[in-house]
């Protein structure tokens, strides 16, 4: 079942799979289309929490062709993250798939988060760590926190969004102009 809370939607991957073990390009593409249907059914949602509860095993091709391909397609507009991942072998295979597609993917648990796929440069990493501590951040907040120029902070946030680490949205600034806000994928 999909539960809509705030601007995120939960998708239980197991419900889209035939068996608890997912494998292969073909099944990955079948699940991709089912996922796409869920995403299109919730245009208001910006984040999709993909629960791996009940998924026993996957290879590398299955996640690459399903969740990770979808995350790549919607990069910077909509975010996809994983929940309920307890198995290290699953994590390894999803990490390999994310690396192959060059698409970052966060795994969340009550203890915090883990980044799968490509890692940001050291310069971007500390901005990402700061972003992960907040639901949304602005350029002004980052510039103030790190004592950088607004331009420098803006470039780094833009780079993180373009690479798929955070989401980027427009909102009206108190001054009346357009301001970008950056949202963590959680």
């Amino acid at each position, binding site marked *: 079942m999909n539960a809509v809370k705030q601007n995120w939607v939960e998708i239980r991957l197991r419900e889209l799979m035939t068996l608890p073990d997912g494998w*292969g390009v073909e099944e990955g593409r079948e699940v991709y289309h089912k996922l796409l249907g869920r995403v299109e059914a919730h245009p208001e949602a910006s984040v999709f929490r993909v629960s791996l509860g009940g998924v026993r095993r996957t*290879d590398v091709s299955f996640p690459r062709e399903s969740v990770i391909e979808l995350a790549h397609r919607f990069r910077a507009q909509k975010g996809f993250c994983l929940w309920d991942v307890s198995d290290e072998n699953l994590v390894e*295979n999803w990490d390999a798939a994310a690396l192959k597609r060059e698409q970052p993917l966060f795994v969340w648990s009550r203890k915090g988060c883990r980044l799968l796929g490509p890692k940001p440069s050291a310069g971007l990493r500390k901005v990402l760590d700061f972003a992960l501590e907040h639901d949304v951040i602005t350029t002004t907040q980052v510039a103030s926190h790190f004592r950088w120029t607004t331009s420098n902070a803006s470039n780094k946030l833009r780079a993180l969004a373009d690479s798929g680490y955070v989401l980027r949205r427009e909102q009206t600034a108190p001054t009346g102009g357009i301001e970008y806000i950056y949202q963590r994928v959680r």
Partner: protein
Amino acid sequence: MSGVAPHDKNVDHAVIRVAANVSIMVDAAVRLLSLLNQLAASTRRVVLEFENMDGAMGYLNRIRFFELLSSDVVVKPRRPSVSMGALRKGQSAGLVELERINYGARAKRLPTKLAERLGEACSERTDEKELTDAAFTVFSEIIDNVYSHVYEERQNELDGFVALQVYKNGNTAKVVVSDSGKGILHTLRPTLTDAKLQRLSDTELVVEIFRQGLSRHGNNRGCGLKASADSAIKYKTQLDVRLPNCVVHLIPARGTYEANTAYCRENMPLLWGTHLCFDFRLGN
């Protein structure tokens, strides 16, 4: 057939004799099955002749060999009247009988079945669960690769095959995945654009296919064989790769497969396809 290979263009009649005292291991059985079906598909008259109906013939019957053998192949003295593989399918702890890999009939549970049967055979290992999960990755990626080839090479209507056999005395389990396509080197080489890769020998290129995940489909694909090898290497699994004209035996060293620890035999008799045999150790 002495002095000539069965696929030679002048051969129109092939007889393969199996002596009475011969034992056939599962990897040899699967390659033999592929060869016979290839020969039969190329309109040659093919005879498989056993000196007696026990021994090797009994084992081949147990693994469903004759069910999957082309009906155009003549078996002497005669084909078994009952398939013991069909009769006792799934009843032996150390065996997964031959399964067909055919794109039109995808066996969704096959990688799970192979991995769990291997896990059961390794139940004395402390890392049985991890091994089973890694084996699932190995088998699913390799089998998926075969499905992809069968689909893409539409002109190739020959099935691929999978089987598993545990050899307790040898402390090993062999898992065989075999197809009758063009072979990974034949399909990959024409698509290579990197000059360094183009200069590699067959052995070196096979190593790189499993180490880097090279794919004729470009960078977004090709993780299958690499993922498969990465999972296999964790358990010191040896990998035998029979290609149309050579065989490369990969032995893990320093956490990877390397060209300088691989054995290669070239100028082998033609056998179409890619025939992989993973050798898993049963004990820690």
